[in-house]
Each structure stands twice: as structure tokens, then as C-alpha cells.
């Protein structure tokens, strides 16, 4: 028998299974010093300890048995699991629009990984149709798996690949594109795709889920329906994030790729448009625009794909008592651009000044954003701001820090002429800088206040 027959087991547990020749998926009765247990031996997660054997009882429950206490294992048969989402061919309807789903990872569709005990993504049109058959009522769906990574592992290489794939699909004439993506860095990718893919004639909709699709309460299916509907039917030809509006299963929101941010580590309604209002609401029945200044769908294929990206860019989240060595390290390691998330209107402390000056002299592009997320950088109000501008830091208006970060990488990818970089950075693209902040662009309702409680009790959260 090979090591694979004892998937994930090591140490004492492996020795016990080998001794009784009981590989995983064996149907066994195990007698121990605590009693006897009947069930199927399951693979063990590699990160779990080497002391226990896991069996699935007849009732479907799993338990771990201490290998040291095992007196005997009697084999009664074998039952191997084949975890597979029922795959059905996605039906074709010539009257429906063509939508392409590009997969990068995340939990839009997922299954159990016995190696780590966590969930891993699963993905194909057939699998998606098998689990979300409603998609066939909306469009003819094609899928392509670009990557299978958790979103923290997305980076410039994957951004470029995704942008190029979008270009290819637009060339092929699809009516809309959906990108399945892990939610953690979805707003980074939405930002960079806004720069790498410009003048798109069709909607580009990013979607993910906050509860993996192996849960009955998952938001994956509804998010996917909303995203596919948007890609197939909406006339908003921009890069968008499509995720739950409220935590209730009611409607999704379409957020502009440059103004959206993940704001809660686990809520379904984690994505919010910052400093503005979302583009639209989307439900299974209809898409309701909330604003009208968006790029319209076109029938041409004149998209511009520009994937140049300078990777030596960093983002520095300022904190009181920050020392200059943080900036020095970036200078000495050859960074070409720094985005600072400063306090308040865009400030850092005095001890950093000499290092900032040195960075400027080395030709490093430096931009100031605000860690308050809402509001504009305004460096004239206080002396500190004026000093910092003197030292070469450019205020980046109301660009979100993550957006400024990917934009600076993209701008430095175009040119090393800092004046040209500055022109690119400060020219609004896809709403990354807005001229004005509407009154309702900043609304964080404060729980406990009677009028807010009244609003919540009246309306779905």
C-alpha cells in the first residue's frame, strides 16, 4: 500500500493504521481502551495532530480516536467518497445573451479539501448549472478557469492575465463578463482592472461570496445570479463589484470598481461604496440604476487593454511614532512608488521628513491618501500638510488608499517620468477621484439611536 492509501496520516496514527492494514475509506470496527467504534476511516487533515484516527460513524458524524488506545481494527468493507457537484450540461438558448464567467478562485462554488480540511473552489459550467440552475434562465454561460487561488494570492501576474482574458472575450463578442473572485482583495482587483481594461463596451462584473457555497445559507448563488443578470442585461459598461446590499437575501449592489471596499471581515453586506453612492441595485427581477453618469454599453469591440504594471510600489499605513526606517527601507530596496495612508486630512509625523525628502530626491513617486477612507486629502489646512507637499508628497484627492496603490503601479508601468505619472494619477479614471462628495456618500448609521433603530426595525437590514 502506498502513502496515499493513508492520506494525511502520520506518526502514531499512521503506524496504527498500517499495523492493522486499514487504509482510508475502510469500513471498520475499532476496539479501544474506551470502547468500540464502527465507521469509515476518513483521510486526515495534514495540519491536524499525528495522534488520532478519524472515522465517520454510521450516523454521519465524524470522531477522532486516539491511536495509542487502539487494540484492534476489524475491516468490514470499503466506501470511498466521490465529492462531486452533479454536472449537467448548461442548456443553450439562441435568444439569450452570451456571458463569460472567468474564474480566479474564491468560494462561489467550492468543495471540501481533505488535505487541509478547508474548502477549495470547484468550477465548471456544468457544476455551476448543477448547483445554480436559475442561471440558465438568464443567459448562455461559458466559463474559463484562469486561476484557482484564494484572493490574498492574487497579484500583478493574475491581474494582467485577467485583463488580457477580458480583452479576448470582448473580441470574441460576449455580451458581458463575470469574474469570480475571493472577496478579501476583490476591491484591489476591481481597481486595477478599471485601469488595465478601459473603454469596455460590455459590463465587467466581479462577484464572490462571504459564506462558501457548501452552506445552505450561502450568498454565492444569489450573488452569482445578480452578477450574471448584470453582465447579460445591464447597460453599465464598467468594472463593477456585485455583492449583497443588505445581509438579507434581497438585492445586490453594483459598486464602481474604484470606489468600493470590503468593510467587514465576515458580513454578507461587506462591500460598500465609499464617498459616493453605488451604481445600481440588482435583484433577480430587475436592475435599478441609482445614478446615471455611467459608461453605457456599446456594440463595438473597441476596448483598450493596457497591462503595464510597476511592481515596486508600496502602501504605508501611518501610525503615531512611525520611525523613518520604514521609509528608508523602501528607498534602500529600490521602491519606485509609495502611497501613504495618512491621518486626518493627510498627515505623518515630523521624524519622517528627512527620509521623505531623501525618497523624493531619489525620484520615488509619493502620494497621500487618507486612512479615514471617507473624505478628501487636504494638505493646505495645517502646516504639516504644506511641509509634506514641499517634501514632494502629492495629495491624491479622495482616491481610496488601495486604489491609489494599484493606480500608482499602473502609472509607473506606463512611464518613469514623474510629471507624467502625476498627470495620470490626478486624472480621474472610472470615478477613482470625484469632484464632489454628495451628502449621502458618507452614511454609517449609528446603532442605538432611536431614529436609526426605528429605521432598522422598519426596513430589512
Amino acid at each position: 500500500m502506498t502513502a496515499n492509501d493513508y492520506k494525511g496520516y502520520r506518526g502514531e496514527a499512521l503506524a496504527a493504521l498500517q499495523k492493522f492494514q486499514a487504509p482510508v475509506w475502510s469500513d471498520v470496527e475499532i476496539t479501544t481502551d474506551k470502547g468500540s467504534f464502527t465507521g469509515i476511516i476518513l483521510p486526515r487533515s495534514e495540519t491536524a495532530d499525528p495522534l488520532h484516527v478519524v472515522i465517520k460513524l454510521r450516523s454521519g458524524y465524524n470522531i477522532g480516536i486516539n491511536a495509542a488506545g487502539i487494540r484492534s481494527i476489524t475491516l468490514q468493507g470499503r466506501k470511498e467518497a466521490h465529492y462531486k457537484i452533479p454536472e449537467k450540461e448548461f442548456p443553450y438558448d439562441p435568444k439569450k445573451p452570451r456571458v463569460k464567467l472567468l474564474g480566479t478562485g474564491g468560494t462561489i462554488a467550492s468543495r471540501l479539501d481533505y488535505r487541509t480540511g478547508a474548502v477549495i473552489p470547484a468550477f465548471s459550467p456544468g457544476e455551476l448549472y448543477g448547483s445554480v440552475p436559475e442561471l440558465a434562465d438568464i443567459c448562455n454561460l461559458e466559463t474559463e478557469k484562469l486561476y484557482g487561488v484564494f484572493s490574498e494570492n492574487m497579484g500583478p501576474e493574475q491581474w494582467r492575465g485577467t485583463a488580457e482574458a477580458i480583452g479576448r472575450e470582448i473580441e470574441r463578442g460576449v455580451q458581458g463578463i463575470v469574474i469570480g473572485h475571493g472577496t478579501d482583495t476583490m476591491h484591489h482587483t476591481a481597481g486595477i482592472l478599471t485601469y488595465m481594461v478601459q473603454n469596455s463596451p460590455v459590463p465587467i462584473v466581479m462577484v464572490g461570496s462571504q459564506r462558501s457555497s457548501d452552506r445552505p445559507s450561502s450568498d454565492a448563488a444569489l450573488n452569482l445570479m445578480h452578477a450574471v443578470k448584470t453582465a447579460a442585461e445591464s447597460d453599465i459598461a464598467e468594472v463593477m463589484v456585485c455583492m449583497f446590499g443588505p445581509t438579507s437575501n434581497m438585492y445586490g449592489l453594483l459598486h464602481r470598481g474604484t470606489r468600493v471596499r470590503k468593510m467587514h471581515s465576515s458580513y454578507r453586506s461587506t462591500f460598500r461604496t465609499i464617498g459616493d453612492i453605488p451604481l445600481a441595485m440588482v435583484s433577480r427581477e430587475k436592475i435599478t440604476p441609482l445614478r446615471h453618469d455611467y459608461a453605457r454599453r456599446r456594440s463595438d469591440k473597441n476596448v483598450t487593454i493596457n497591462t503595464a504594471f510597476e511592481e515596486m510600489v508600496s502602501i504605508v499605513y501611518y501610525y503615531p511614532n512611525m520611525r523613518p526606517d520604514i521609509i528608508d527601507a523602501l528607498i534602500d530596496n529600490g521602491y519606485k512608488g509609495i502611497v501613504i495612508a495618512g491621518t486626518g486630512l493627510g498627515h505623518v509625523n515630523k521624524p519622517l521628513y528627512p527620509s521623505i525628502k531623501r525618497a523624493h530626491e531619489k525620484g520615488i513617486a509619493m502620494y497621500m491618501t487618507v486612512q479615514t477612507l471617507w473624505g478628501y486629502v487636504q494638505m493646505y489646512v495645517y502646516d504639516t500638510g504644506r511641509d509634506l507637499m514641499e517634501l514632494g508628497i502629492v495629495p491624491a484627492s479622495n482616491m481610496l488608499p488601495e486604489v491609489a496603490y494599484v493606480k500608482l503601479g499602473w502609472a509607473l508601468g506606463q512611464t518613469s517620468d514623474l510629471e507624467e505619472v502625476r498627470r495620470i494619477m490626478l486624472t480621474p479614471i472610472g470615478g477613482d477621484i470625484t469632484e464632489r462628495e454628495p451628502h449621502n456618500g458618507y452614511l454609517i448609521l449609528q446603532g442605538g439611536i432611536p431614529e436609526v433603530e426605528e429605521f432598522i426595525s422598519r426596513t430589512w437590514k
Partner: protein
Amino acid sequence: MNDPIAEFRFKPFREMTDEDYRLIGFRSGLEIHQQLLTEKKLFCRCPAGLYSDHYNAEILREMRPTLSELGEYDGTALMEFKTKKEIVYRINYETVCTYEMDDTPPFELNEEALDIAIGIAMLYRCSLVDEIHIARKQYLDGSIPTGFQRTTIVGVEGSIPYKDREIRIVQLGLEEDACREVSDRYHRRVYITDRLGMPLIETVTGADMRTPHEIAEVADLCRRIVRSTGQVRTGIGAARQDVNVSVTGGTRIEIKGVPRIPAIPLLTYNEAMRQWNLLRLKRELERRGITAETFRSRTADVTQAVRKTRYRPLAQALAKGFQARCVVLEGFRGLLAWETQTNTRFGKEISDRVRVIECLMDLPNIAHSDGPEKSLPRTEWKALRTDLAAGEDDTLVIVWGPETDVETGAKEIAIRAREAAIGVPSETRQALKDGTNGFERILPGPDRMYPDTDLPPKRITQERLERIRATLPEPVWERERRYRELGVPPDTIVPLSISPYAALFNRLVTGKNVEPVRAAVALVQYTKRLARRYGKDNGLAPETVEGIFDACIAGRLAWDAILPAMDAAVRRGSFDALSLPPPCTDEEADGVIREEAAFLRENPPKRPERFGEILIGRAMRRLRGRIPAPVVVERVRRLLEEERR
């Protein structure tokens, strides 16, 4: 009898004998859900045991079936999805957080709850699990917002003694409680979430009980066992049982959520009867040449055909714009009137399915040609028979409702009718007040289990087991035997064995030589009296009562002052032996008695013949708690005698 199905007919409940139950192969097991007495919930830090119908907000969700770990969809899950319900959760800020609403991953398992569960698994003599794995048990009815219950097995294969045999304990699990249902109308079900996430244990017994009365007795035994720990919750809804019933040739049917043990016998009798009669129905179908393979039915839209019906419920439905479909069940004539349970007929099995699965909830939701319930006039049935080319041997069933529901409703009618040719379908059923039961959902299988990927397995160390074992109460059956031997009054034995003061009883009797009857009476009857007077949660801790006994033993308090001392302790919230007046000496008592006697001579009572009695009463008022009453009586008697001489 060679063929019991053909020959045995169910008798009325009270006339059924043990031999009758043996004949039909009655088997029953229990799943007992018991909430644990913890401070917080199982997977989050919300307070446990706070209930309120008041709510601050509502959340709307839906459930979709997902695959099991072994790659299969669960039957119940698919049925629930067919139902397409909107689920509304009512949220109270005090009792639930974002964990219960499935917007935050679980926190670590409540260790206090785990200790209690392991302790109870030990009492049930289970094989204990070395490493617990949290599983997700799918519930698509929406009763848990995640769509699954987090649950884990703590022990398996235990047993408890009952009569001359052992009842098997299949497994003992620790899990989170579900929501309370508020309403379920059409495609919307509403839950209140306060109970959600409460720690509870699920005890599954083997199907080892052979009569309805045995189940109730074993349920009561289990209740006493868990209560004997003093670590479980009591009161309405704190313990609920599901009862499994089967008969020879039948199917294991689960009756869910039986709140009271005394309701069990009649419920299980009716379920056994239902299965028996369904098996007899299958025989009858076979006799008519109808099997699952030869079963034939057809469906037609009859909205137009019945538009002038004189049957009110149908006419009213059509007036609302509903559609009507008619299902022809070939060769079924009369069978929808086949008796299944007491005063319940096969037509109800069909109506139930349509109600639950298609959400056609306004009853009646079907009408059929088999009677005896009121339905369409005979002439209308006759016209329909002609329209649908149905023969005299066929049964016609009409269902009405909104267009989408009525179509699946008609399909469901045919599905349930065909199942009659197979036998007893696997279902969970709900207990009804009259002792019968109704369809709840298709019985879920092991396919609904899925490992919880949010939490790692947890090792149960030997040290932990030893620590828990050291604090374990003795098994309740041994306790009760010992109480009998000690001469504890019979009516006090069972209450004492499950009393929170049971451990104190042991300390008092074995450690401090208190007379067993005296201790038992104080701990059971006095506490019961105080509970009536001040409520169940009056805060009288065993330690406080122990202090009162200590004061008696030390001679600081009279033995007959225990009840007043307990009463005072409840009122004051504590008992302080130091603040007691010191016990009085005989001389002091004589002094008080003389003073009172002098007073009475100056103010003679109206009935002089009661002089002694009144004197004792007056003296006791001043001496109570400081000297035993019999001593006062004795000294009054002696004093009066001396004076007489």
C-alpha cells in the same frame, strides 16, 4: 396467526396489551434534547436562557441544498428546496449577535458545555470520543440561519439499566439549539432567534422499547439521569424529545418535538396504528393489482370545469383567481377514506403533503371523491368523471391554489398515492394535540452531515476526563436504591435524586450524621414549599441550606427552626449563623416562661382552660429558633405542675 397484517386489527388505546404490541413488532427509540445550564451559548458569547418575544429587527434569508461530505444531496434538503420558503428571522439585540445570524464565523466551543456533556456521557456509560469533530447537520427548514446545526459526538454505545435489561444509548451529542417558529404561512416562515445557539445535548437511545408505556418510562429515567447532575435547564422547552416508532414491515418514523413525556404513549400508539394500517392499505392495493410499477394516475386542469361548483372552499378559491387541477388515481376507489390513525384517514396524508410541500395551507386544500368529508356534490363528481374519462373504480382528487403551486401540488398527490403501494414512506412527523401526528418532512439521512470547516478538531485529554469524573454524581438508579435503604419517604426518593440539593443530602447524611428523613424532608418538601412561595429561582443555594444545618448541628439553631431559617434566608438572600441569637439555656427558657405566665395571670385569657396552650404559644414566639419546641412544651408542663403542687 400466520399473517398478522391480514388478521390483526388495532384496538382502542386502552385495550392494547403488551402481547398485541409484540405481535405487531412494535419498536421505539428516543432522541432526547436537553438544554444545558451554562452562562453563555455554545459557539458565541451571547447570554444563554434569555427569552423574549420582543425583537428589534428582522432579516430575510433563503436556503439552498448543498452536497454532503460523501458527495450526495439529502432527500429532505431537496424537498425543502422544492418548498421555496422565504425565511424571516426576528432579532433581539440582547439575545443574538452576528454569529447566530451567520454573519460571523463561530467562536470556540463553550468549554463549560463540553464538560457537562462529557459528564452526562459518562453517566450513560458511553465509549468516550478522544477527539471531537464539529459537524454541520443540514436543516433547510430555516430553523437555523446557517442552514445547518453545529453538532458533535461526545460518546457512543452506552447503556442504562431498565427493568431486567439494558437500554442502549447509541450516541450522545453536543449541539446548538434552533430557532422557535413563530408562523409558517404560504411561502414565508417566521422565526424568533432567542433560543438559537443554546447548548443542548442530544441523547439517542436504541430502538429497544417495546410498548408505548416503556418509552415514557425510559424517557423519564433519562430525564432523571440528566437532572441528577444539576447542570441542565428545566422548564418549558428545556427538554424535548423525538420518538422513533416502527412496526414489523413498517418504517422508522420520527415524531418530532414531543414536549411532554405523558403525551408519548398515545402518540406512539397512533403512529404504530398508522403504520399498521398503511401496510394493510398496501395489501388492499396489491389485491386490486396496484403496485408501485403498475400505479397509474393522470392530471388535468379543471379550473373551467368546476367554475360553477357548489362546494364553497373550491368556489372561494376560484373567486380569488386560483387554478384547480384534478388527479385521477386509477383503481383507488374508497381508499382515501381508509382509516390510518384514530379518526384520521389516508386522505389526510395527501392533504398534509400538499400543505407542507406546496405551501397550500388553507384547509381544506384538496377535495376527493372518496368521502366521508364534505366535498363536491355527487353530480359534479359525475360530470368530472365523464370529462376526464375516469371509471367508477377511480378516485378523483382536486387541488387548488396559485398556478405554480397547484401544478406541483397535483404531482405531489400522485407521488403520495403511489407511495401507498410501497408501504410507509420515510418521514418525520409532528405531534398533534389529539395524540395523532401529521406529516412534517421527509426523513433526513446521514447524507446531511458535513464536517465544519470553520473549527478544528478538539482533543479531549485524559486529565480533563479525570477531572470531570471526579465531580460526577452517582448514577441515579444507585442513588434511588440507596435512598430506599436509608428509609427516605417513598414520595421523596425520585424528587431528591434529581434535586440540585442531592449532593448536599449526601454530605449531610454521610458526612454530618444528619437523620436521613429529616434531611430529605427539608431538601425536597421545604424547598418545594419555598418554590411555591417565592418562585423557582428564589436563589436558595445548597451552601446556604448547608449553613442552616451546620447551625443546628452546632446547637445554635433548633432543628425545628430549619424551615423558618430557610424562609428567612430566601427573603434576606443569605443565612448568617453568627447573627443568630445564641441558643438559650433551660434557666433562660424558664425565665421567659415565668414572665409570660405572669402576664397571662394579669390578663387572663377568655378560655382559661387553654391557659397552658396559650402560654406555650407566647413563649415560643420569643424562643423560636433558640430552643426546640418540645423542650418548651416540657418546661411549661413542668412549671405548671410545680405551681399546682
